[in-house]
């Protein structure tokens, strides 16, 4: 158990290191790395424009930048954002809690609604219920995050709920299919034939089989939720990391972007690895 945990931790660290380096390389190779909107200010002299470009090119050697970044990171220094002119630590301290809170709320909503509808469809066995649930899921998944968020703003509802509604169809769809799939397994068919009630069928025969995939889905839903949260934050001006990612990306702010890549990696890789570990444990218990 301890060995497996330490191996997982090592894997996590290696992945984080690679993610940071790959993220920095992608940013560096993208066009516009040394450009700054400030260059277009009327009346700037040639020397000033060159100085502005040089300031961006200071981090152009990615391996050197990354090594320098890592050595500073060990001492707790995350660097300074070029575009916002503030220490990255301060930016993350202000904004990360906002996004984490939103993400947690959104996922809670998505899973509650998604599971309730999937179980409802199974329990009620009504085609009309399934069609209604499918239709609402289909309608939400066809609506761009931006449009849904805007609608919530008009209605004065918290935009973060829009994220929950955007993730819910995915949870509902996968879970519904999973239950459907489990119902066709031989032991479930036998249990049904023996007259086992729907609740008992679900809790004793379907859930134990479905739990590893559901746990995998929990891990994945975090990255799906993040994917939906970021644009909603940008559009609705929620002061979270989504807004920060967009500002940093527009300005090719390498120090900030590397840190944000690591934060996103930490959340997605951490979530999937935690769900892996949990799956292993439940798998063992199930066995």
């Amino acid at each position: 158990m301890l060995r497996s945990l330490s191996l997982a931790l090592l894997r996590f660290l290696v992945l984080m290191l690679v993610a940071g380096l790959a993220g920095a390389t992608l940013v560096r190779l993208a066009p516009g790395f040394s450009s700054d909107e400030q260059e277009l200010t009327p009346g700037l002299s040639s020397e000033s424009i060159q100085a502005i470009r040089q300031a961006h090119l200071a981090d152009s050697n990615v391996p050197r930048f990354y090594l320098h970044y890592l050595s500073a990171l060990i001492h707790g220094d995350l660097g300074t954002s070029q575009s916002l002119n503030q220490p990255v630590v301060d930016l993350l301290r202000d904004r990360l809690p906002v996004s984490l809170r939103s993400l947690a709320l959104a996922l809670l909503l998505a899973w509650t609604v998604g599971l309730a509808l999937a179980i409802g469809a199974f329990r009620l066995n009504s085609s009309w219920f399934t069609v209604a649930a499918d239709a609402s899921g289909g309608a939400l998944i066809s609506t761009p995050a931006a449009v849904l968020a805007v609608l919530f703003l008009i209605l004065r509802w918290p935009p973060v709920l829009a994220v929950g509604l955007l993730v819910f169809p995915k949870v509902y769809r996968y879970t519904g299919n999973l239950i459907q799939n489990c119902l066709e397994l031989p032991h479930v068919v036998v249990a049904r034939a023996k007259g086992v009630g729907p609740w008992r069928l679900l809790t004793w025969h379907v859930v134990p089989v479905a739990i590893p995939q559901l746990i995998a889905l929990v891990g994945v839903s975090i990255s799906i939720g993040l994917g939906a949260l970021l644009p909603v934050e940008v559009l609705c001006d929620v002061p979270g990391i989504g807004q920060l990612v967009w500002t940093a990306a527009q300005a090719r702010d390498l120090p900030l972007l590397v840190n944000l890549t690591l934060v996103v990696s930490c959340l997605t890789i951490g979530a999937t690895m935690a769900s892996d570990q949990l799956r292993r444990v439940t798998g063992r218990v199930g066995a």
Partner: protein
Amino acid sequence: MRTRALLIWFVLFCASTVFGQSGGELRFCLRSDPKTFNPLLVNDESSETVRYLTAGFLLRVNRITQQPEPELATSWKVFDGGRSIRFKLRPGVRYSDGTPFSAADVTYTMEKLLDPSIHSSTSDAFRSGKGKLATRVLSPTDIELTFPAPIANLANLFDGVPIISSSSPQKEMAALGPFFVAEHKAGAFVLLKRNPNYWKKDSQGRQLPYLDSVRLEIEQNPDIEAMKYERGEIDLINTVSPAIYDKLARVNASLVRDAGPSTDTEELWFNEVPAAPIPAYKKQWFASTAFRQAISESINREDMSRLVFHGHAVPAVSNVPQSNKFWFNQALRPHRFDTAEALRRLQADGFRLENQQLRDKNGNAVEFSIVTNAGNRSREQMATMIQQDLKQIGIEVSVVTLDFNSLLERMTQTFNYDACLLGTVNGDLDPSSQMTMWLSSGEDHIWNPKEKTPATGWEAEIDKQMRIEASTLDFNKRKAAWDRVQKIAWEQQPVIYLLNKDSLVAISPQIKNAQPSPFRPQTYWNIEDLMLARR
């Protein structure tokens, strides 16, 4: 007696409602967090707004009359052919933290401003000649500044020089303007509070500003900003799009105002860089004056103004709005929309129309791409209209929207583009602020930057006229030179000016004394006079 008292109370109440009253909080939005609160390092719009509201200046250009007016300096005099300026400073002025203001602060500010590490258009304008600035403090309220070379429009440049304290413990955060920064929550808001030591008083001797505080909310999305305004959650919007303007006007016409033609223009230009990585035949087209003129004549600017800007723009002649009687060359008229004339011009230049497709003299089909910045809906629509217009003369245009940094790299470093559609925001109407754009050696000479020697005769002529304009204090000579530059640009069309946009603002009827100006900052340029009616 009681009735009379009630009547007096009622009249007073009504008067305060109609005429506004001191106190209260003005709320409006910034597009992003200010990058800096150091007034000397400002290079973004949000920081500029905070600086405008908090910093003190020796003089200010009135946004309505366009004339400099005394602020921290009660008077000034330019002499020595534009090399020197002497200021008489206002006595008894204090910063927000109580530190007294003196001539030493002006010296300190100028030293900091001219520090080689500071890159702003104001400091670059002061650095135009080789050598150092000499400051002479004649008394605590008299100071003389001598620059190494004459500077055109010297006094007005001080409209961009915020004075910072040399001795305050709060350093650059000590404010001389009407407000000071009280709180900043990143990504959410900036709160400014009334500077208790602000020097200005109104005609009745009441201390300004009337407002207690200004709350600047960070809001990137203009649609949400408009929604907040409509709901009364904010009090003004400095610039509204024509679509939002029309929507708000439909709700209540008093919510929005057209402040008249601004200095903002929309323009199209072709890549004329000889080393650009585009086919040689395209370079030949773009270098041809007849080709550029024909393109200009084939664009229906009236339609563009009507459909994209809902009539709140006029066909442009140059980057100076026609309404500007001061600097505009009155002899010039917008280019007519005339596709038949455009085709004649192209045929005379060797082009021919075959099966609805224009070909050059070597048989190459005339096709090019227009790049513009993504996310700007009006620009995308303008490009689509140009695409349709040019189809009428057999030219196939592809429209490409790029994120701003990618576009900038193509425009200024790789030169890998055919034509570009962008807008210019001219803060200052004085032509001397446009030197880097019109001089052939300039970085902002967008169609062919940093030419070693002028590539064409007319560019050499523009260089000559711009130097005359910048080297004299005689207004008539400056105007004549600038008129000539406008005429050459109008004939040669290195930049095809499309439209001069109106300045559209939204300002709540609750705000008294508002005088929206077409120039930045349109709505709050007279912030100390603004008053809120009882809500």
